């Protein structure tokens, strides 16, 4: 089983880089793909961004409307599965959860019913909601392990609010991990944590680098310091230097590999072997085959080289992170289960897209189906009841609460016409339900948040019967998409029309029209000279203009200062930080930043643009 984490710096942009979501996901050839910084808002999720054939996806989008915090984070987990229903694949989650406090995913109405995840009781509801409000976590339970897809907050050293936020985020996260570990669960943590744990993980680490509170926290989580977690990359590559996963894009640092390692894969818990308590057995040694950084991965559109165009474009196109992957071995199948209701396929906005198409399908099906109507809706009900076997009453009432789920009615209507598939599906389902409840393992996890889970199940079973009906739609969507992006964009006309018309005007120019031109053009400029209408004179003047312009352009170029390191023209920037120099212009070396030992890298040249307040 291969697991990948990748900070995409905008999922939409990476999809357009590859042409489609499927192509992007397939480029990893991985079973679980954890993506951070989707930069998508919930209302922007559409099938082409969320649904890919052969993958189940789980999204968390930012929910806050705080200034500067909207539409930049967001995480998504994609699981490659052969079947989303009644499958034994470990890649298909048994359960999924948005956020790590247990408070998300509950609509406002039943807030009282929303339960705080175990171990987090000491925190106030506001605190918990705050850390979960920015779309920074998706948890998927894969039976053998619980997988956290995380996008850790970034905090500037002078931003006390964000530092506090980051601190709370990590503290609450740690409690949740500890609670799971106490139950004997194994944990995988993947994502951009925005923490480089050790000096070796940072290009320009100073002497106090490791004293930072977040770096200290990170290291305290590791086995070496008595914690539970293995830093999988470090465990497999203990001494590798200059292994970086992120390079600041505003300095072009990737050119000289002048970066930091903040994208991590961590794991905790025992191995799956029976003799797991024997010395030398642990998750990393027994199950992790390799772990590496995909430095060669195409993070931006090919052909746009060179990437760092002398610093004119401060924002580099593409992702500023490299993906990190790990390969796990000996991960057995799990018991039969179906995709959890958090899956993107059940999102109302994605359903909405599909119900439109379903209208056409339904028209065809309607004729044959009438007679099955009664039996089918009956079986549907059965599933629902079966799915909520712990507490039938409550789940049914929950079902009736509209909550976030808007398309209920139309879906029910659809159900009535899906007979053949539904029957088949319902058989599978009851089987699945039986399996699920018979596994103690599973139930244990469920019990940590009973209300939510049962409600979700109820919902799931209601929707499941439709799945087979709609299964093909996303595929269609995708093919349409790729074909439109494939459309070749050749641009006729410009050249052709020029060629054709070139002859005539040139003739004109030499023949009759110069006189006309002159009077027209020179009326505005220099009337005297033009009076004689002399072709040569006019040419002469144009040559003068040409030479003059060349001189001007030369002057413009030369008025840019040269840096002292390479004698190359600098780039001009403007101070953006508030302060006494705000708005002032300055020149810096245009080269990408790199280690100071490298003479090819940015030489550090700095000069204020030649503007000074007049002395009194």
């Amino acid at each position: 089983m291969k697991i990948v984490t990748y900070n995409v710096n905008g999922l939409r942009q990476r999809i357009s880089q590859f042409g489609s979501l499927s192509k992007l996901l397939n480029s990893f050839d991985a079973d679980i793909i954890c993506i951070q910084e989707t930069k998508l808002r919930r209302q922007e999720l559409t099938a082409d961004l969320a649904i890919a054939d052969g993958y189940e996806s789980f999204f968390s989008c930012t929910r806050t409307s705080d200034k500067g915090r909207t539409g930049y984070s967001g995480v998504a987990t994609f699981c490659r599965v052969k079947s989303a229903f009644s499958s034994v694949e470990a890649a298909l989650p048994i359960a999924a959860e948005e956020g790590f406090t247990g408070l998300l995913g509950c609509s406002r109405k039943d807030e009282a019913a929303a339960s705080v995840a175990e171990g987090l009781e000491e925190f106030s509801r506001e605190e918990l909601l705050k850390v979960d409000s920015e779309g920074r976590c998706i948890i998927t339970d894969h039976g053998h392990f619980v997988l956290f897809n995380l996008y850790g907050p970034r905090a500037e050293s002078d931003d006390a609010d964000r530092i506090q936020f980051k601190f709370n985020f990590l503290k609450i996260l740690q409690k949740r991990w500890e609670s799971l570990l106490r139950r004997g669960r194994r944990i995988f943590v993947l994502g951009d944590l925005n923490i480089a744990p050790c000096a070796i993980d940072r290009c320009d680490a100073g002497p106090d680098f490791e004293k930072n509170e977040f770096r200290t926290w990170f290291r305290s989580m590791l086995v070496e310091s008595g914690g539970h977690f293995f830093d999988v990359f470090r465990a497999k590559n203990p001494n590798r230097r200059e292994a970086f996963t992120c390079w600041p894009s505003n300095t072009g640092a990737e050119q000289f590999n002048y970066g930091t390692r903040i994208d991590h894969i961590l794991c905790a818990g025992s191995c799956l072997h029976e003799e797991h308590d024997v010395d030398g057995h642990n998750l990393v040694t027994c199950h992790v085959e390799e772990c590496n950084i995909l430095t060669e991965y195409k993070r931006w559109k090919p052909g746009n080289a060179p990437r760092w165009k002398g610093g004119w474009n401060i924002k580099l196109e593409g992702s500023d992170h490299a993906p990190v992957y790990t390969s796990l071995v000996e991960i057995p199948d799990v018991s039969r289960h179906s995709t959890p209701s958090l899956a993107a396929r059940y999102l109302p906005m994605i359903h909405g897209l599909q119900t439109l198409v379903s209208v056409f399908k339904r028209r065809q099906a309607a004729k044959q189906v009438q007679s099955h109507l009664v039996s089918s809706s009956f079986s549907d009900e059965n599933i629902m009841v079966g799915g909520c076997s712990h507490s039938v009453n409550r789940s049914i009432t929950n079902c009736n609460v509209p909550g976030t789920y808007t398309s209920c009615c139309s879906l029910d209507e659809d159900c009535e016409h899906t007979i053949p598939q539904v029957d088949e599906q319902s058989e599978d389902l009851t089987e699945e339900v039986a399996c699920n409840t018979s596994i103690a393992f599973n139930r244990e996890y469920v019990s940590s948040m009973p209300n939510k889970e049962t409600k979700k199940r109820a919902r799931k079973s209601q929707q499941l019967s439709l799945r087979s009906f709609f299964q093909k739609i996303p595929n269609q969507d995708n093919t349409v998409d790729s074909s439109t992006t494939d459309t070749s964009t050749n641009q006729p006309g410009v050249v052709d029309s020029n060629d054709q018309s070139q002859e005539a005007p040139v003739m004109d120019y030499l023949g009759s029209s110069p006189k006309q031109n002159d009077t027209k053009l020179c009326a505005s400029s220099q009337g005297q000279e033009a009076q004689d209408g002399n072709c040569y004179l006019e040419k002469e003047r144009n040559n003068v203009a040409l030479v003059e312009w060349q001189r001007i352009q030369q002057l413009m170029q030369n008025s840019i200062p040269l840096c002292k390191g390479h004698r190359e023209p600098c780039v001009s920037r403007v101070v953006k930080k508030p302060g006494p120099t705000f708005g002032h212009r300055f020149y810096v070396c245009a080269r990408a930043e790199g280690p100071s030992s490298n003479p090819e890298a940015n030489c550090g040249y700095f000069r204020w643009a030649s503007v000074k307040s007049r002395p009194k």
Partner: protein
Amino acid sequence: MLELRLVQGSLLKKVLEAIKDLVTDANFDCSATGFSLQAMDSSHVALVALLLRSEGFEHYRCDRNISMGMNLNNMSKMLKCAGNDDIITIKADDGSDTVTFMFESPTQDKISDFEMKLMDIDSEHLGIPEAEYHAIVRMPSAEFARICKDLASIGDTVVISVTKEGVKFSTRGDIGTANIVLRQNTTVDKPEEATIIEMNEPVSLTFALRYMNSFTKATPLSNTVTISLSSELPVVVEYKIAEMGYIRFYLAPKIEEDEDETKPQV
């Protein structure tokens, strides 16, 4: 002693809005003939030339040539404090390190004085030569602004081609291509709505849309824009300012880079 009284104060406000994003600091030169500015953008690729002739001012007094360095952002902040109907007077004493903007409301019942610090700016006056152009397009300025804005959502550069059929603006980007063709059109009710193409030679040049879009910030100054193109010369995008002058933007064409760069990626 310098004293320039501009009845239509909004013109100066619009001038500042037109150039303040392109140029951060510039010298304003005053002489007996007029109030002018010449400046480069920060990357030294584009050039702005502004002229407000002395005849356009109600009162124009300039005892000797003077050059005043101003931060355009700060100047714009001050001019924003003037009402659209206000009369603006620019005043400076010889050797002073400040300039004063005085705003008078049309009814003369409110008079504001804003004094701004001047700066020393090194700049060399570039004698911009007059030239003949292969093609000159005059068109409604709002139309040009719209075209540049639309194309910028598709691609980074615009190819402006003038043939006897008309003028074509085209771009290509990741999502596809766009072509906009304007034909000569003089049969309009209002002369400012006409599109007039004078062509001696067909010409096709490529420009960065980023710059074109900052030029179109001058659109409120004039209903029409004149685009003059020649294959060897920088393009001139000119907006006339009432009867008193112009603002001209000069931009060197982009040399076509590798095909790959503009090719759509799959």
